[in-house]
C-alpha cells in the first residue's frame, strides 16, 4: 500500500458568500500554506458584493442580526480545534466567542443607548436613532480576537464590510465559519494579502462609506489612507495600538453609525 497523500488546503478569498481565487491568479505562501493574494480588482469586486448585500442586511431586524452574530459565536466554538491547530490559544478562542456574544447582545440595545427622545421647544416628538453607515472597509489585525473585534461591531449594526487581512489562515477559517452561520453572502468579504497594495483602493473608492484602520501598523500608510478617505468624506476609525482583551466600549460600533433625527408633530 502506498502511503496516503496529505490533501493540503489553499486559503482562498471570501467574496459575496463564495470562495473565489484572486482574479489576478496570484498566490503567496504563508507559513507553508498557499493563500490567494488579493488584487485591487478583487477589492473592487468585494465592494460590489458588499454594496449589494447592504440594504437587505440593514433592513433585517436588530433582533435577527443579533441572532446571526450569536450563531457566528456558536460556530466558532464548534471550530475550536481548527483554530487551535492554527496556533490560536484556547483562551483567545474563548475571548473571541465571548466578544461575538457580547456584540450580538448589543444589536437590539444600541439604539436605546445612543438614540434619544429629544426635548424640543415646540409641539413635536423629536427622535434620534442610529442607522448604519453602509459599506465599511476594514484593515484587520492579524489575531482572531482582533479580527472579531473589528468585524462584529461593524456588521451587528447593519453595515457590510470588506476586510483586508495579512493572516489568511485565521481569517479564511473565520470566513468558513461565517459562510455556515446564516450570515448572508456579501455582508462580510475577506481579502487576503498586502494592505499596502489594496487598502488605498478602498480608501479612495467612491462607493465605500467608512474605513477602519485598526490593523495598520505603519503610521505613514495610515495617514496616507486617511488623506485618501477624506476625498469622499468617509468615516475613518484609527484607534492605534489596541488591547483587544480589554472592554471595547461602544466606540467600535458608534464609529460606523449615522444619526437620524426625525421631527414628528404631536398634540392635534
Amino acid at each position, binding site marked *: 500500500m502506498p502511503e496516503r497523500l496529505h490533501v493540503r488546503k489553499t486559503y482562498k478569498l471570501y467574496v459575496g458568500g463564495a470562495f473565489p481565487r484572486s482574479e489576478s491568479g496570484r498566490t503567496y505562501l504563508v507559513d507553508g500554506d498557499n493563500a490567494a493574494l488579493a488584487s485591487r480588482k478583487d477589492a*473592487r469586486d468585494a*465592494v460590489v458584493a458588499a*454594496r449589494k448585500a447592504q440594504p437587505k442586511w440593514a433592513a433585517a431586524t436588530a433582533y435577527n442580526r443579533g441572532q446571526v452574530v450569536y450563531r457566528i459565536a456558536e460556530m466558532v466554538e464548534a471550530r475550536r480545534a481548527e483554530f487551535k491547530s492554527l496556533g490560536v490559544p484556547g483562551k483567545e478562542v474563548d475571548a473571541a466567542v465571548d466578544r461575538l456574544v457580547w456584540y450580538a447582545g448589543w444589536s437590539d440595545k444600541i439604539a436605546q443607548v445612543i438614540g434619544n427622545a429629544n426635548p424640543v421647544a415646540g409641539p413635536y416628538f423629536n427622535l434620534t436613532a442610529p442607522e448604519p453607515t453602509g459599506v465599511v472597509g476594514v484593515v484587520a489585525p492579524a489575531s482572531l480576537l482582533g479580527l472579531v473585534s473589528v468585524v462584529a461591531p461593524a456588521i451587528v449594526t447593519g453595515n457590510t464590510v470588506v476586510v483586508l487581512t495579512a493572516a489568511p489562515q485565521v481569517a479564511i477559517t473565520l470566513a468558513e465559519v461565517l459562510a455556515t452561520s446564516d450570515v448572508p453572502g456579501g455582508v462580510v468579504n475577506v481579502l487576503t494579502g498586502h494592505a499596502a497594495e489594496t487598502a488605498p*483602493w478602498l480608501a*479612495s*473608492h*467612491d*462607493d*465605500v462609506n467608512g474605513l477602519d484602520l485598526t490593523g495598520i501598523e505603519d503610521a505613514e500608510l495610515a495617514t496616507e489612507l486617511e488623506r*485618501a478617505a477624506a*476625498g*469622499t468624506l468617509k468615516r475613518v476609525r484609527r484607534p492605534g495600538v489596541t488591547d483587544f482583551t480589554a472592554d471595547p466600549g461602544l466606540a467600535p460600533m458608534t464609529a460606523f453609525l449615522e444619526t437620524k433625527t426625525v421631527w414628528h408633530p404631536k398634540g392635534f
Partner: protein
Amino acid sequence: MSDLRSLLHGLPGVDKVGVEARAAALGTRSVKTSAKAQAIDLAIRMVDLTTLEGADTPGKVRALSAKAVRPDPADPTCPSVAAVCVYPAMVPVAASVLRDTGVHLASVATAFPSGQAPLDVKLADTRDAVAGGADEIDMVISRGAFLAGDYTKVFDEIVAVKEACGDAHLKVILETGELGTYDNVRRASWLAMTAGADFIKTSTGKVPVAATLPVTLIMLEAVRDFRARTGRQVGVKPAGGIRTTKDAVKYLVLINETVGDDWLSPDWFRFGASSLLNDLLMQRTKLTTGHYAGPDYFTLD
C-alpha cells in the same frame, strides 16, 4: 412571394456550437488603458438611452433627455449618447429637450412590445411618433406570423411601416428571445433587411432572453453578407440585458472582428440600454480620476 421563402430557407443553417464558441472566445479579449478609454467613449456615443415603462412621466423623460445630451455634467469632454428611446406618448416631451442637440430621438411603435395589433393601428402609432418629432422608429415584427411561416405578412408590414416612417430611420426589432432558433434569427434578419430596415435590433427588453453575444454575431454576419449581396449597409442594435462596460466592450470586439471598422460608429451600431450608461460613466470616471467611482455620484435615470 415564393421568392422570399426560397431566399430565407436557402440561407445556410447556423452552426450553434460554432457561433457560441466564437462569441465566447471573442468575449475574452482584454482591452486596457487608452484603448479602453476610446472604447468607453465610443460605447457612450452608441447608447440609445431607453426608458420604456408604464410609469414614465414627462419629468422623467425630460431628465433622461437632459442626461442624454450631457451624460456627465461634471466632465464636458464626455460625449453625448446617440439617441433617446421612448414610447410614442413621450416623444413630444423628449423632442422639446433634444431639439438642435444632435441627439436623435427614437420611439418604439407598432404596438410595442407584442406587436399584436391590426396593421392600421401600427401605422397610426408610427405616424404619430414621427409627427411628434421622432427621427428613428423602433418597430416590432409580428413574431406570431413569422413563426407560423407567414413571411409575406411580416414583410408587407415592415414595408408599410417603412413608408409611414417617411424620412425617419426604421429599426426592426426581431425579438430574438421569442424566435426559438439561431436559424430563425438569421432568416428574420434577412427578411427585415430585404423589406427595407435601416437597422435590425435584437429585442424589446420585455422578454426574459434579450440581447446575447451569439445572436448579435449572427445578425452582424447577416448585415455583412447582405451588404456584399446588395450593396446596402444596415445597422445592428442589441438591446436588453447589456448592463456593464465589460459587456459593451465585448460587443465592440465582436463588431471589429466580424464586420470591421465600417460598423464601429453610432450610425451603424447602437446599444439599447438604460443602466449601461451609468456603468460606462463610472468606468470613465475611474480612468480620469484614478480611483473607483460609485453609483451615488450619478443620476438614477
